[in-house]
């Protein structure tokens, strides 16, 4: 990895199509310390032709950065890079052959998956469907799309708004229809669980039609009752001890095991009032979350700091999702469709926020959200 010293590495191995790659690159370039540096792209088995590479290169250059090298396992991309004079690094091909496109793959039809909670929870996420044939055929169309997408994205990033890529998904649906049934899909089963702190703002596009999801979950409810979230010691639980002993990464023993190896993003900044962060996976925030901001994740939320805002874990219905923070002061904690609020008058004033930390974890116990101490485990 010596070649990567001083370079800003953007990992794009989880991307499905060219539009997504461009989105992720432009998002990553929004990060202040990315500008003016050499950029290294990790493409893995994504396929890019010369014109696509050229547009990515010019995008990078518009941020005063320079595309230094590309890591790829695709021959087409390699050739394109060489003809443009970009250094190529061979990546280990991670090809896992899947027999055919699963029509009911939960990652694909997002609408139905929002209803069937269990499916989401047990889904093998991050299926990178990159079809070589496909991107060949769609080259011209793609490049048209990409220009539009980057514009959109730059704007949304500036406004700190949740990023919704409905357009992108529609495009994908179109692709899916055109796919012959026997098409072989390259799939990258799970992102590597490396402890590297990734700087890429890997905001993705699986976040679709939030409105629909909300409607389906809450339809027919006249008024949402929000109970106060309690500490485990106060909750008077019968099985309190069981919960205390459980390792917090493992699900409770008598529950079905949930495999949750979705992508995780690391956000190394303080979330301020009015800012929202949405992601279809786990979120780790290194910093505080001030009141007035909102975090929404399909998986877990971990805050290395004071959580003082609204946090919604398992937003697509995963009731096993957890929220943990060094200091829990959340205005509201939401897990799946279970909502809870801070007790009245329980606000920690700004002055004492840096005092002793009491790491706590929130999870659902009998339809209530309960806080468990994470110390002494």
């Amino acid at each position, binding site marked *: 990895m010596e070649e990567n010293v001083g370079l800003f590495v953007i990992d794009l191995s989880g991307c499905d199509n060219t539009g997504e790659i461009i989105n992720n690159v432009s998002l990553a370039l929004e990060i202040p310390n990315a500008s003016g540096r050499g950029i290294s792209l990790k493409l893995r088995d994504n396929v890019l032709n010369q014109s696509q590479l050229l547009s990515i290169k010019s995008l990078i250059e518009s941020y005063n950065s320079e595309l230094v090298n590309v890591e790829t396992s695709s021959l087409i991309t390699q050739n394109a890079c060489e003809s443009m004079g970009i250094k190529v690094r061979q990546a280990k091909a991670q090809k896992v052959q899947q027999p055919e496109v699963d029509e009911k793959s939960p990652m694909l039809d997002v609408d139905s998956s929002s209803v069937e909670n269990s499916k989401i929870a047990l889904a093998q996420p991050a299926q990178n469907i990159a079809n070589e044939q496909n991107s060949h055929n769609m080259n011209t169309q793609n490049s048209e799309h990409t220009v539009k997408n980057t514009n959109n994205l730059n704007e949304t990033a500036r406004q*700190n*708004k949740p990023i919704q890529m409905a357009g992108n998904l529609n495009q994908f649906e179109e692709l899916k229809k055109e796919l012959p049934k026997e098409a072989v899909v390259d799939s990258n089963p799970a992102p590597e669980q490396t402890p590297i702190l990734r700087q890429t703002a890997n905001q993705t596009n699986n976040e679709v039609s939030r*409105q629909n999801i*909300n*409607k389906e979950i*809450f339809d027919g*409810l*006249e*008024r*949402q009752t*929000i109970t106060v979230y309690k500490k485990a010691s106060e909750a008077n639980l019968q099985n309190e001890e069981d919960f205390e002993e459980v390792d917090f990464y493992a699900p409770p023993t008598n529950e079905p095991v949930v495999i949750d190896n979705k992508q995780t993003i690391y956000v190394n900044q303080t979330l301020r*009032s*009015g*800012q*929202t962060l949405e992601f279809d996976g786990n979120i780790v925030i290194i910093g505080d979350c001030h*009141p*007035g*901001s*909102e975090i929404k994740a399909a998986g877990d939320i971990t805050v290395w700091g004071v959580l003082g805002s609204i946090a919604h874990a398992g937003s697509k219905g995963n009731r096993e999702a957890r929220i943990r923070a060094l200091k829990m002061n959340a*205005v*509201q904690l939401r897990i799946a469709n279970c*909502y809870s*609020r*801070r007790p*009245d*008058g329980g606000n920690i004033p700004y002055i004492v926020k840096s005092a002793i930390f009491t790491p706590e974890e929130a999870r659902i116990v009998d339809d209530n959200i309960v806080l468990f101490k994470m110390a002494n485990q």
Partner: protein
Amino acid sequence: MTGSVIVITSGKGGVGKTTTSANIGTALAKGGNKVVLIDTDIGLRNLDLLLGLENRIVYTIVDVVEERCKLKQALVKDKKNPNLCLLAAAQTRDKSAVNSEQLKEICETLKEEFDYILIDCPAGIEQGFQNAVAGANEAIVVTTPEMSAIRDADRIIGLLEAKEEVKKYRLLVNRVRPNLIKTNDMMSVEDVVEILSAELIGVIPEDTGVITSTNKGEPIVNDENSLAGQAYNNVAKRIQGEDVPFLDIDKPKNLVEKIKKFFSKKVKA
């Protein structure tokens, strides 16, 4: 039932629009009226904080407008008074998320169920102001006895007069400090009323209790001993049509001052 829609506005920021909305709303509700407070300061909401309802908000006015929930679901009931409801603003959006027509529609719907609809207007005269004023048929213009606030209030009154729907506007002079007026360092309430030539609805003295009540999330009208609280109660009574004399905010504190005041009045007469 047709309630009256009152917008609380000022032009200048920081003169106490939100504090006034929260207190008048609470006072009206305490008097047995059904009251709903609408925060139209989208992106910079504070009204929920003053009422201590921050942790109860699930849906906001933007969710109502974008049809993610029913209007009823978005109304947050007050902790103490079930007659008081809050329709909160969204914090993660901006003023352009709602337009005048939509707010007008919300007001029309709420009119049928509530006696008073108080709209907390954002500072400025842009979209946010236009939205807040759209559905209103009465206005309370809040100002402080300072030149900058008075000039902005004058501009606002001009804009309100141009609106046909707003039948009536009244002036509320906030943060009055009697001892500064005495030494001629602050404009008196009479001066303010004369400059703006508008009907007066209340005079609120400067009170440090307002700051503590804001931090606690409890309106100061709940504090019987506070002078500002009493003044807000009186404003609420005037809104209901009662004729209440203006509070003597220049209350003598001890016996010596009482005697002094007694004699100074005699001499003037």
